[in-house]
């Protein structure tokens, strides 16, 4: 029976093609593979579900075993955030033309290339940077590439990284920079944070910068523990004085209310694209961007695709093409800048539509809504006996909640919350033991006041239990 995905799985078509080839059987065509290389037994795979009815039922049964953040009230964030994804974003990004596109010419892929350029353009407005590359796999990957880029720029082989960082992201950065056995490694030095505010410890930074050896400093606004560090300009000044590049990681959804990183001295900006119209997808919605000053010395070190607007041979007409393609690994193999491959480009289409629909006022509104709701939630939780907000001021959408005073572990609280249909914040107790039994809670525009009060009531009940 012909398989619905394969037009040529009918015997007569195959006979026609075989006759044209001059072969008696398809098996003959594999003559290059020596007999001794071949699999000698049939594969043991589950029975094919070749009818859509059977396949859809099977997948539906499996997926229904999951409890989504639609049915369960969730306060999980930590690098993957539940923001509202406008229906129009879903419709745009689901168009088969983008979904299935391969890599055509600037003319045949004109629309997609324009959408890519529009993503980069709008992101450039948010972060205040003129040069924006096509995204890489994740925020951590973007940070890793940016650090390597900075190291290539100034020839130094150390990066100072704020210690209040997502351990997953730090692990990615370490994989991009180390290991020490390799001659080319970049040393990752952590800079401490102030225990009462969560801000970067400037004296620790000054100590570690003093040797003038750092290629770059990398810090985040807001930080992993949620803090908007008011010392950002001072951090940049200290780094620049030591000849280091300033790399800032940002959450782009905050940039309607927070200053663009260029305003406080960033040379290179990285961050996540997931908040811009991409569902969490169990972490599969992530992608990372890289932006910088539009100077040739930065551009010539980018490992990513750069899509530039340009003219066509028809006067007055515009098109879009890749600039500096040759310096990527596609052009230069091991001599290229890091490596380039398939990444997360489809999400740029969602991001372009998202930013265009939000506009400047949308970003301002969402920023203010999130800021206020997060602070409101923190004040409710902080009012529960034994519960403490660890860094109580100047946070954006995430904040650290400590349960030491309740005598309960985060795991115990989470278990009790799950029984109430709530996912509590991410447990930090293993990764940041100095914070005790703490969790990182995330509040966004999807939460209502009633949701926040329900959370506070459930936490109150859990700590009393």
């Amino acid at each position, binding site marked *: 029976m012909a398989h619905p995905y394969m*037009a*040529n799985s009918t015997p007569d078509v195959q006979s*026609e*093609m075989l006759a044209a080839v001059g072969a008696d059987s*398809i098996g003959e*065509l594999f003559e290059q593979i020596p007999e001794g*290389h071949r699999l000698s037994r049939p*594969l*043991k*795979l*589950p029975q*094919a*579900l070749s009818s*859509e009815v059977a396949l859809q039922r099977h997948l539906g049964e499996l*997926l229904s075993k999951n409890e989504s953040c*639609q049915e369960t009230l969730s306060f999980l964030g930590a690098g993957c955030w539940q923001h509202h994804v*406008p229906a129009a974003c879903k419709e745009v990004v689901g168009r088969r*033309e*983008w*979904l299935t596109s391969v890599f055509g010419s*600037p003319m*045949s892929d*004109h*629309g997609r290339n324009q959408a890519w*350029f529009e993503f980069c*353009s709008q992101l450039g407005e*948010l972060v205040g940077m*003129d*040069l924006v590359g096509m995204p890489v796999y994740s*925020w951590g990957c973007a940070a890793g590439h940016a650090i*390597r880029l900075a190291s290539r720029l100034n020839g130094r082989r150390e990066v100072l990284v704020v210690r209040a960082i997502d351990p997953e992201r730090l*692990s*990615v950065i370490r994989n991009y920079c180390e290991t020490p056995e390799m001659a080319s490694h970049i040393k990752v030095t952590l800079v401490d944070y102030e225990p009462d505010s969560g801000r970067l410890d400037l004296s620790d930074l000054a100590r570690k910068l003093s040797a003038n050896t750092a290629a770059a400093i990398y810090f985040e606004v807001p930080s992993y523990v949620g803090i*908007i560090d008011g010392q950002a300009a001072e951090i940049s000044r200290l780094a620049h004085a030591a000849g280091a590049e300033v790399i800032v990681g940002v959450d782009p959804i905050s940039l309607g*209310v927070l200053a663009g990183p260029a305003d*406080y001295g960033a040379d290179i900006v990285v961050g996540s694209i997931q908040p811009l119209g991409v569902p969490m997808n169990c972490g*599969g919605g*992530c992608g990372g961007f890289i932006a910088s000053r539009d100077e040739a010395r930065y551009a010539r070190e980018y490992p990513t695709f750069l899509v530039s607007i*340009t003219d*066509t041979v*028809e006067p007055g007409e515009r098109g879009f093409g890749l600039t500096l393609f040759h310096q990527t690994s*596609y*052009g230069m*193999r091991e001599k290229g800048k890091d490596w380039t*491959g*398939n990444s997360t*480009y*489809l999400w740029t289409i969602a991001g372009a539509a998202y*930013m*265009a629909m*939000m*506009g*400047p006022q949308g970003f*301002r509104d*969402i*920023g203010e809504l999130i*800021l206020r709701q997060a602070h409101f939630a923190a*004040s409710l939780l902080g009012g529960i006996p034994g519960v403490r907000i660890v860094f109580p*001021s100047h946070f954006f959408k995430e904040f650290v909640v400590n349960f030491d005073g309740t005598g309960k572990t985060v795991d115990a609280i989470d278990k009790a919350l799950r029984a109430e249909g709530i996912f509590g914040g991410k447990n930090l107790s293993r990764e940041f033991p100095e914070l005790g039994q703490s969790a990182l809670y995330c509040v966004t*525009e999807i939460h209502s006041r009633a949701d926040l009060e329900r959370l506070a009531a459930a936490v109150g009940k859990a700590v009393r239990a």
Partner: protein
Amino acid sequence: MSGIRKYHAPVWSEPVITEMGRAGRRGVLLPALDETVRSATGDAQSLIPPGMGRQTPPELPELSEPEVLHHYTRLSQQTLGMTSISLFGTCTMKYNPAVNELMAARPELADLHPYQHPETMQGVLEIIHGLDLILRELSGMDRFVFQAGGGADAAYLHACVTRAYHAARGELERRNEVITTIQAHPCNAATAAAAGFKVVTLMLEENGYPSVDALKAAVSDRTACLMINNPDDMGIYNPDIKEWIDIVHGVGGLCFYDHANFNGVMTKLRARELGFDACMFMLHKTFGAPKGGGGPAVGAYGCSEALAPFLPTPLVVEKDGAYDLDEDRPQSIGRVREFWGNVPQVVKAYAWARSMGAEGLAEASDISVLANNYMEKRLLAIRGVTRSNPTIDKRRLEMTRYSLETMQRETGVSVIDVQNRMVDFGIDAFWLSHEPWIVPEPFTPEAGEMYSKEDIDYWIDVLARISDEAYSTPELVISAPHNQAIHKLDSTALDDPDRWATTWRAYKRKVLSARG
């Protein structure tokens, strides 16, 4: 030659979105702020430290929802992609089943958070484990992970695993060389270099692959790993591959099989049985999940038991039908990317593999190789087309690299001109070749199992027609495309720092202001 279709791309002269809109328009309204929340939190600006508030709003367009939808629908219409015929070689393009998109968009997947308790994600963990088992059976490897964000990222993951493996044995400082071939995908060389290895590149010999002697001369106790495709992008299979692996293992190195060209060998052989220690599959291509113009991609990475301790965490583990995430792996390299990968793509690949079954997978491989050989027969009858490595007369696998050198010499029409002309007939650009071009004026079509014989014939008919045009009216081809959304790019600005512009801000500053 009769069946050439009329085709013309839509032309919308669509402005760049940053040029569109009117002050005050909105595409998204947010929930009104609750009065209790407002009064409890005071002025929003007071929640931001001094100097960190935004002073001037970002210069984003102001548009209504329908304007945005119209704009992006028009741009999508000006994107040919696989809405037509795209025999894009070295990528193994597949049909992306509609049902898989439908299922992956369900909230039970789209609205999952990776830090949910595993108890609340049993379905997705079961799917991930299920695909792991399928890929183990297809490759003979002992364990798969899906964290890598693409095929190149899987190659990087392997470079990291290689570092960890040799470091654990105290040999990393000495073992700093990775061997590959000039025909291996550039990412193999590039990721090895990015991970800190020195890259040793073997050249091809007359038979289409490097000789065993060349490999023997390259290996030593400095060899960390061999990273290689097989078949390569010319459709040529290296019959000495087992001996190669023995040689590399003999000096203590690892062997990585980049399965970018898996269709030619799918179900026919298993990487582990050839002796490879690790391999990579691209789920966004080979396993039916969409390529999306360049991702979300997944590099499924599989390895032997000996390398498994170094895999990135977390690993999905199964015990008595219950699924969990294992983080407690002390020798793990950690992460090459946050979370566990592009999960919807993993689900789509699982669905595709389940819909095919063992027989379907075998047939897909058969059809792709049959279609390639069928194409070859017809393409070589076209004036100006020759095949790479003409002395190798064995049948190629799922793709063949050709050359238009003859045409270029005889008519002045280059392979890029031909590529541009083909899109005039609703055929998307073919793949030329990875760098460096060993074959002059190269092109590499790959028929795969999705396109019908009629589609493949149409593709060939169009190339035949363009060959006629090249020999009769070369200007027509050189000035192509004529039926596309835009005309050929004037690419002189693209590599000029004074004129390149990856954002509208840069374009305004550098180009528009100069033009007044």
